[in-house]
């Protein structure tokens, strides 16, 4: 059923199912990220690796700011403010890329390697799995931006934008738990 042929009431009925499906997907993802978080507490306990605290705060701030721009992009789509929508989407993608580079180049470029026992395994497992989701989120944002440039979204019909925004915020929520678990909780063993 194409967008052009569905009535608005049909579209809204479909929207409810779409939203439910997306949230069920998030619940399934929760098992993956929850498992990693539990592994961190099981293997690291009250300790943590000696990581660059400033880098952790910077990448966390970048991801939080990207979430704010994603929110603005959705508001832009809802109110047919095309300029705000596209600008915010591009900003989100750029900030997401900066986050990714911060983790991959600077964090992974540090002293800890994936084979360095529990610290290495958990650090790379958590940041790697999260980075994979950030990367896929950036791809989704670029697809939505392309569709937006072609005028495929309206104030009444923009499920693609909403789904992409919710996914991006979900990735942010995961980092909200990962950031303190990796960088802040516990003490560095001497």
């Amino acid at each position, binding site marked *: 059923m194409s967008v052009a042929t569905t009535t608005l009431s049909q579209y809204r009925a479909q*929207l409810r199912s779409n*939203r439910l499906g997306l949230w069920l997907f998030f619940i399934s993802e929760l098992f993956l990220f929850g498992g990693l978080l539990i592994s961190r507490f099981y293997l690291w306990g009250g300790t943590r690796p000696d990581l660059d*605290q400033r880098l952790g705060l910077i990448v966390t701030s970048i991801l939080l700011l990207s979430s704010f721009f994603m929110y603005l992009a959705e*508001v832009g789509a809802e109110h047919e403010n095309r300029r705000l929508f596209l600008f915010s989407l591009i900003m989100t993608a750029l900030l997401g890329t900066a986050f990714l580079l911060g983790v991959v180049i600077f964090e992974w470029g540090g002293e800890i390697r994936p084979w360095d026992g529990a610290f290495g395994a958990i650090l790379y497992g958590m940041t790697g799995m999260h980075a994979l989701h950030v990367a896929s989120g950036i791809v989704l944002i670029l697809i939505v931006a392309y569709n937006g440039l072609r005028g495929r979204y309206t104030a009444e019909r923009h499920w693609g934008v*909403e789904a992409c925004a919710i996914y991006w915020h979900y990735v942010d*929520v995961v980092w909200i738990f990962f950031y303190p678990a990796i960088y802040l909780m516990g003490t560095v063993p001497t």
Partner: protein
Amino acid sequence: MREKIKMSDKKRAAYRTGIVVFLVVAALTAVEFYLASISGAIAVLFFIALIKAALIVRYFMHVNRLWTDEGHE
């Protein structure tokens, strides 16, 4: 005309919500960072993370839209 004013009010409210949530979450992140520098207590940091996540889920992810027809008006 009335419809246009109503839309503009909704837009303004949406901006305000976004800015307030962003600032609160940013402030809580700073609190986390500060608390970690003095103690690193797991329970406190986890509680702050829960508050931050709840704000994002409620206001940015619009979890309430699951049981309402809000949006796409």
